[in-house]
């Protein structure tokens, strides 16, 4: 366990079950806006943070000794979005680091052999193909050919942008090209390990981390750019310090300043990805970049209190209906803001939001797609 038993129990004993963690700040709008996707979807106390903590307590105290269906669902049908933690922290200033605790809980379960078949299969796919989707063909992009080994900037693409939403990787590579930034992509990029770490399969992630660290060292890059906040968070929080700068695409674009973009004449809402916002505190840069190219309208739940898209924490693969419902709730919120598109800065968010938006007349983009479109080539 990363956390000591006493530390975990102490955190559990600090939750007073007020359940304010399940709603966004009420007084600014006086609207009842839920924050916890799993609690809202499943309803039982077990799916809200206070109930999940009680389950953890009973496991640590040896009272829960069987992997029941309810146990697995309560533990794994949570996107680890961290909205509960942010709300609790805002009010009480008590540091009950809920996503970290729930990740730890998964680690405890995995050590007992109590995990979901779906997650085990992902681990197997990664072992076989080094990507989370089990894709055997190496994905090649037109712009990948311009990758220059030895340049300072390395773009870590990530599994989802490679194999499920390649338009994000394509856009990022085109942006580099249009801005005249020399870049390289890893010749043998392996999954960062995020999905394994988030689902408690910590040991399986180690080999991936070792490989990627070696590859990055070998590349000589000084800056690693990510379009995937999940990968960025994993490199930031779980990898050892590699003495390279780790930045999100929107941070890089903000830093570049005047990019000579043309406005697209679109009204859009920005969806904060959990890993980028709550985990890494990056709220301003995506908005700043997006404002350069489109009119950005606010949704009711934003920043620390953004509603999760529903795909993280291994939920998309194991609880498809729940994941899609969460994304659908976000699409409704965007519609309420009167926009034509919802824009995120995460391939995983885009993928799930796009599925939910299919018949809703709402377009879904990543920030880099719009920037690429607005950059003069």
């Amino acid at each position, binding site marked *: 366990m990363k956390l000591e038993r006493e530390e975990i129990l102490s955190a559990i004993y600090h939750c007073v079950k*007020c359940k304010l963690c*399940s*709603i966004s700040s*009420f007084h600014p709008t006086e609207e*009842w806006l839920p924050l916890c996707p799993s609690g809202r979807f499943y309803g039982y*106390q*077990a799916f809200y943070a206070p109930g999940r903590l009680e*389950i953890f307590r009973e496991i640590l105290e040896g009272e829960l000794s069987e992997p029941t269906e309810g146990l697995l669902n309560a533990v794994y049908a949570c996107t680890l979005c961290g909205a509960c933690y942010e709300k609790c922290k805002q009010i009480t200033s008590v540091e009950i680091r809920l996503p970290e605790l729930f990740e730890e809980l998964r680690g405890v379960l995995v050590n007992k052999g109590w995990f979901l078949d779906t997650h085990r299969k992902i681990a197997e796919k990664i072992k076989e193909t080094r990507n989370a989707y089990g894709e055997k063909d190496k994905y090649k992009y037109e712009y990948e050919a311009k990758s220059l080994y030895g340049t300072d900037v390395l773009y870590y693409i990530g599994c989802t942008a490679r194999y499920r939403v390649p338009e994000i990787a394509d856009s990022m590579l085109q942006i580099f090209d249009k801005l005249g930034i020399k870049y390289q992509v890893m010749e043998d990029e392996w999954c960062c390990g995020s999905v394994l770490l988030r689902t408690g399969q910590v040991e399986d992630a180690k080999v991936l981390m070792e490989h990627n660290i070696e590859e990055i060292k070998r590349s000589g890059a000084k800056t690693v750019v990510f379009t995937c906040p999940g990968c960025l968070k994993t490199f930031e929080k779980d990898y050892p310090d590699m003495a390279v700068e780790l930045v999100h695409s929107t941070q890089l674009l903000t830093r570049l300043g005047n990019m000579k973009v043309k406005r697209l004449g679109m009204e859009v809402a920005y969806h904060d990805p959990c890993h980028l916002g709550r985990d890494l505190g990056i709220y301003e840069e995506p908005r700043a970049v997006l404002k350069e190219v489109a009119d950005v309208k606010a949704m009711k739940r934003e920043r620390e209190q953004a509603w999760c898209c529903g795909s993280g924490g291994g939920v998309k693969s194991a609880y498809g209906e729940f994941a899609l419902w969460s994304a659908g709730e976000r699409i409704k919120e965007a519609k309420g803001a009167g926009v034509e598109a919802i824009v995120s800065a995460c391939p995983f968010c885009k993928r799930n939001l796009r599925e939910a938006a299919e018949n809703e007349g709402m377009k879904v983009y990543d920030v880099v797609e719009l920037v690429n479109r607005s950059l003069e080539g």
Partner: protein
Amino acid sequence: MNQNFLKFVHAMVGEENATDDRAICASYSRDQHWHFVPARNPAYVVRPANKEEVKKVLMLANEEKIPVIPYSTGINVRGLTIPVHEGSILLDLSRMNRILEINPAMKTATVEPGVTFGMLLEKTKEYKLRPAFPDAPLTVSVLVNYYLRGIYQTAAADGHDHTLSYEMVLPNGEIIKTGSRSLSEMPYFRYGVGPDFTGVFCAHPGTCGVVTELTAKLYRLYDNKKVYFIGFDDVSASTKFIYNLMHDELAASIRLVDNQSWLKGICGTFDYRYEELPKFVLCMLVEGVDGIFEAKDKLVVEYIKESRGKVLEFPEEFKRTFEEESLGGAEKSCMVFGLRGNYHCIGFYGPLTLAARYYELHEATALEVGIPEDHVHFYLDPIYNFHGQLCYVELDIFYDGSDLEFGEKLRNYNEIQFQRLLDLGIYGWFRPYAGIIQPTVERIGYLAEVWKKFLKVLDPNEIMNRGKLF
């Protein structure tokens, strides 16, 4: 346990809404009162969608003699929804979350148990109306808080009784309607036929039946508002001022708090020089329609001068937070949970004349059992129309919830303090929570016997939250 029980319940409420899964049940095993009520899992959790389903489940449980614990949102209940007996059914009513009616003309709302204060205000504010708010998180159930008779000191002007009538399902499946609800489709009057049955069933912690809908009073929201914070060095120095305000019915919200606990919540931040303020601060809100508001405010200013209290100049943000927390439900004030991680209080009603002695007793008993002085806190709220100089008093202790030894001190404190408060004289307890009933019942004579017989008539098989009262 009857193996077919869950099959029957599944047929009643749907398979996804009833479970005996050990982990799901574990999530209901404790609330914030764990130092006094140890964890225990229910055997089943059942989530009915409507009163017909409640009725079916209750009748089956009654037949099988299985204990039933009604549960709405499970917040601020002080151990009252933690099972006493093995094999209990926890009846989670959170799916029943419809606001059945908001009647602006009658100034009432009718709600199901899963409706929270936040949900209700979201709708009533359209009519410039609000519910009476308890000083509990706005995630608590309106119905249960009113039925259990919470405390509504955030706006003292609302008085104490907000329940007009309700509908309750008894274990035998019969449905009782109280007040005018029993006579007509108009549930807007508390006293229907004969005795005040609305009151008779109230404040029972799920020990009579399951209340499935309740009609409550709503109160007006005013445009004119003004906030004052007045400092006093001790409790007794503030009582004359409080008396004047209450006697002349001038302030909507009057809360006397100490400067190291609730004041932080009322102001909405930990980041201020609270330690430099007088030890007690009276937080006050004046409101009213044009003309009346100005007249009230003029008198308030005169009483402030006369009080010799120190007028505290707080930032506007503090005033706004106090307004929001008083008239829009407690959210930021729950930051007191963050003072040390948990919060214990003995809440009760008593006259203003004894306020200073209650505080002295609090300090003395706390020190006696080894609770440090800086853990000892206090607040007092007078309640309109102030007959009997009625106040809600809270003897608070903020502590680290993970400190199990401190839990032992708190239990000692309770045991001694319940008796001492009864000896000194109180009007009544906030709620029949753990440890209070036994010392109290010993003092109420034959009333206790009548009470027990009354419950026996309603619930002969003793299935309703068995063990929480007697």
